[in-house]
């Protein structure tokens, strides 16, 4: 359904912005391949700076590519202009980590959720859009009273549900979720992950779950892709990768996770600096 090959992205290096002229470009993605089958859930793992968020944005055509090709539902979208992309945008959606800044602070939740139905012509009237928005709230486990509230009146977990609701509004074939549970309490995280599971089963959507947390990925994803320094270092079925990680970086990531078991040797004996 989605096939990306040889993706390269270079962005201006804001750390070295000269007073005049352009900042030098740095390579964020150095030739990444990623394939997502319909209904598949893929976990994209890596540490900060590994390029996983840039990859998500590149797949959505939100950052310019310097090389590579993206085919979505049989169409080459690498060079499509925004007007041609627009109908496809309904089919591929992204949920961002920072739910606070992802929502317009001046729009009530109901208005924000009704908006895609109107702008994509899926509702004939704003009343119908409102009704559809109420339905969305229900699907993500929020009662209809939330429609009248504003983003700042919601908790982080509730805002993230709204972000998910907006992403699934137009029945997308693919949802990319970028670190949507980091920063949430474990109990709230469990609820959001459970919601994603339910929605995936209901809609058959494919899901790319970006996370730095391998345990979260293991709980939800059938495939896992490990990134480091703008490259994919390991990819495969979750069961296989977690049972016998092949790349030293994957092994280091796994060992560095503190499982809730007392192990006085963990701090000293675990060497995560192998890579």
């Amino acid at each position: 359904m989605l096939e990306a090959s040889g993706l390269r992205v270079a962005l201006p290096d804001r750390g070295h912005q000269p007073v005049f002229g352009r900042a030098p470009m740095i390579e964020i993605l150095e030739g990444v391949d990623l394939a997502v089958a319909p209904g598949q859930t893929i976990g994209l793992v890596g540490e900060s700076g590994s390029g996983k968020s840039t990859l998500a944005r590149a797949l959505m055509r939100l950052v310019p590519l310097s090389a590579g090709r993206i085919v979505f539902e049989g169409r080459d979208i690498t060079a499509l202009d925004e007007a041609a992309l627009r109908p496809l945008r309904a089919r591929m959606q992204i949920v961002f980590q920072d739910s606070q800044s992802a929502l317009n602070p001046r729009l009530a939740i109901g208005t924000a959720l009704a908006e895609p139905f109107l702008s994509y012509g899926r509702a004939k009237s704003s009343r119908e859009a409102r009704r559809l928005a109420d339905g969305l709230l229900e699907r993500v486990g929020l009662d209809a009273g939330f429609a009248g509230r504003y983003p700042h009146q919601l908790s982080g977990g509730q805002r993230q549900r709204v972000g998910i609701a907006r992403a699934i509004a137009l029945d997308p074939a693919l949802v990319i979720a970028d670190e949507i549970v980091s920063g949430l309490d474990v109990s709230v995280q469990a609820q959001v992950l459970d919601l994603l599971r339910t929605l995936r089963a209901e809609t058959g959507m494919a899901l790319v779950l970006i996370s730095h947390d391998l345990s979260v990925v293991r709980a939800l994803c059938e495939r896992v892709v490990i990134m480091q320094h703008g490259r994919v270092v390991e990819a495969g079925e979750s069961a296989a990768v977690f049972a016998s990680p092949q790349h030293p970086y994957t092994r280091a990531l796994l060992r560095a996770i503190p499982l809730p078991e007392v192990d006085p040797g963990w701090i000293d004996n675990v060497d995560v600096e192998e890579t």
Partner: protein
Amino acid sequence: MTPPPPSASAAPSGVESAIPPLLEIENLRVAIHARGARTPVLRGVGLRLEAGRILGLVGESGGGKTMVGKAILGVLPDSARIEAGAIRFEGRDLFCLPPRERRALLGGSIATILQNPMTALNPAYRIGDQVTDVLRLHAGLGRAEARQRALELLASVHIRAPERVLRLYPHELSGGMCQRVVISIAFACAPRLIIADEPTTALDVTVQHQILRLIRDLQRKTGTAVLFITHDLGVVAKVCDAVSVIHAGRILDAGPVGRIFSGDRHPYTEALLDAAPRYDRPESALRPVSPELRAQLERETTEFDRLEQAAREAARA
């Protein structure tokens, strides 16, 4: 004056020792007063931390764990009122100390490591100035001595090329490097207590491991005690000697990590463990804290507040 703590505020019994602990918090009650309303945030918190030990303070956001740290440091928000209780550091009640003496403790005997190293450091000053400031203020070192000591400190947190780092500004360093600098400042004056509030939450797992090792190594070498505030029970299991679990300003569970992690624990602690996914147990369902347990805890909290209110009225009458 105040009602007896309810049964659930379980300060661990049987761990009392003859020597006073390094840090002892007793029946700490703090409430936020805003717009004429009083909202309790700490409901009779009790903690003990022995010298040279690491105590984990765990809970969900809003549970009051950061408030405990702030109360020890004396940096509660203006709207907060300490209504009862005592915090004793080396046997001295911090609330009874003159402000001057209390301030002198901070940065010297009691140091902090906060979650966001980027904001813990002042963006407008070079690393060198920020490390030497502490040394000149608390250890009374001269400029040259302080610089020399700062170089040693940066080397002790495994910063390569400390001379270069001294000249840099915080934004020129990565999050992990900034946290190393913050740790070097925290350990600069050989503190007896460090309050570490989510010190590794913003870091990648491999960097987290390095930082945890660093804190533990320095802590062992210097004999400093650490109050380790975190939401991550995994981190607690790996670095702490004991743990207290806080919910709605009440300590619900407390004990040595060996006991808590081998299964003798409060249902709330159990629920927090069940909610976190584990890569080694993919088949286990992720269970959020159940509505029944939430309701039960809510009832206990309400009951606690009701008893306290009754006691206040009785005291007033």
